[in-house]
């Protein structure tokens, strides 16, 4: 079960001349939730975008299920991995069910409508995210939390074993953040979906991740289970803060109770 879904080998990623990730090696375990944490500008979004195939590394390779993404047709990659970028824009007037149906794009031929299987998957995706009742609403009329669920439904409709999300909880209030993360956890447990995401809130990462990757200046500074890597020392390295940690009530993950700038 512990197979490596995504392998990143010696990648160098740069925007124009600015090198954001000098040289990075890491593995994303299959069937688990991996959360990437780090300060602003540490390269975590860059890493996510490289894995998603949006940015092309200058050097190095990225493998998905053992195949190098560069050497695979984008449509084939899209059947294995769904990507949800940071705060995407909904086209004006698009209905929720139409938005979710766009997730079937990699499977569709240019002509002809949706197949029976397409309809089933779209319905399942809307049910799983609890937006079936909203299917005839305009996606741009939804609240932030509902809209995020619609986007996740679209990603689910892609029927992939890997889901990559860049800050899926940004701009959401506390209860909606929790709702989205619980939904992702549920999908991970029910379908063994491999989930990789960037999250800023350290307590959320600690609670929902199976595997945490800490990044600083384009390098991985630590990785492991929350209990192993969410330590006062690591938080100091990552953010330069003095944090007080205790264990959660059930004793499974660390919780940051107080933090102070050094």
């Amino acid at each position, binding site marked *: 079960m512990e197979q490596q879904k995504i392998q990143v080998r010696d990648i160098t990623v740069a925007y124009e001349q600015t090198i954001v990730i000098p040289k990075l090696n890491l593995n994303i375990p299959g069937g688990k939730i991996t959360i990437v944490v780090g300060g602003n500008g540490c390269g975590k979004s860059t890493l996510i975008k490289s894995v*998603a195939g949006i940015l092309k590394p200058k050097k190095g390779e990225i493998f998905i299920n053992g195949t190098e993404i560069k050497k695979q047709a984008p449509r084939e*990659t899209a059947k294995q991995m769904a*990507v949800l970028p940071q705060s*995407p*824009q909904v086209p004006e007037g698009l209905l929720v069910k139409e938005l979710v149906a*766009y997730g079937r*794009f*990699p499977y*569709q031929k240019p002509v002809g409508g949706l197949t029976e299987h397409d309809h089933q998957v779209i319905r399942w995706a809307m049910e799983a995210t609890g937006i079936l009742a909203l299917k005839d609403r305009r996606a741009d009329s939804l609240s932030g939390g509902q809209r995020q669920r619609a986007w996740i439904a679209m990603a689910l409709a*892609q029927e992939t074993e890997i889901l990559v999300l860049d800050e899926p909880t940004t701009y959401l209030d506390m209860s909606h953040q929790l709702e989205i993360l619980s939904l992702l956890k549920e999908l991970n447990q029910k379908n063994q979906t491999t989930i990789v995401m960037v999250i800023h809130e350290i307590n959320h990462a600690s609670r929902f991740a199976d595997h945490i990757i800490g990044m600083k200046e384009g390098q991985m500074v630590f990785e492991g289970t929350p209990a192993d890597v969410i330590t006062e020392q690591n938080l100091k390295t990552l953010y330069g803060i003095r944090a007080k940690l205790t264990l959660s009530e059930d004793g499974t993950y660390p919780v940051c109770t107080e933090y102070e700038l050094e």
Partner: protein
Amino acid sequence: MKKRQRTAVALVVFLFLAVFVGALMYGSYSMTAKDVVMTLFGKGDGMQNIAVLDLRLPRAVTAVLTGAALSVSGCILQSVTKNDLAEPGIIGINAGAALAVVLLISVQSTSYYTALGFGTVLLMPIAAAAGAFISFLCIYLLARDNGSVRPVKMILAGIGVNTGVNALITLYQLNMSKGDYNQALAWIGGSLWGSSWMYVAMTAPIIIVLILIVFYKNRTLDVMDLGDELAMGLGVQVERERKVFLVLAVCLAACATSVAGNIAFAGLIGPHLAKRLVGPVHKRQIPAAACLSSILVLGADTLARNLFSPLEIPAGIMISLIGVPYFVYLLMKER
């Protein structure tokens, strides 16, 4: 929602037929709708045959084709640049085409005046298409960034090149004789005057094939509406597709502009209206937009021919007169 859409489609089809028959009915020789239909089925007298089959029908077909071409071009541009105000004019089609035509008129004004010979009729559209492509190429090269085209940069480059080319046009127009000046102005204003079956034969096959290609790729346009990152995640090769779509949009707009002059505003309003009526999914938006712009161009041309008869005003001006107030209304209703 579904019911509203069906009503909208029925209304658009009805309106299209009404405007089409109307365009064939009115002119310096007016006839009834019944006469028009009879003539179309080969039962008209000599006068009716000339008016409908030789003069009005080719002009109406040209109007429909140009309207559809501009509209589909507008649909593409609005999705590819993710800018609701994108239209064929912005990628430099009109200015470039206009400059080429102005140059042509000023260079060979004598042959233009003596007779509207076969050569000139053919030369104007070709010059316009060439001009359209050259100015688009300028904008494209300016907007290029490491081999990729950034939509925002393209719009800025388009505005810049448009301004420059328009300055050149004005410069040439100042040096023209009054007759040439009027001719150039009518063309720039957008006119279907003189449309013949030859125009139709030249543009119809190209426009129809281009529209079919775009329609075949409608799902790619849908997904590109979501933004580059999501489109890539869904397996679209965004850079490549964007180039393909831009070339398609330029070809469509150049075809339309080459026979009808500067009536690009139709390419802005058609896609907008279509989006309101049937939503942004291109499978529905493209046909609806094509129909709506055809209605607009054909209706405007019919009005332009008859309103101040025997004087004719350019259809492009008519479209602006109808279109602008409606557009302002749309903008005001928007949230």
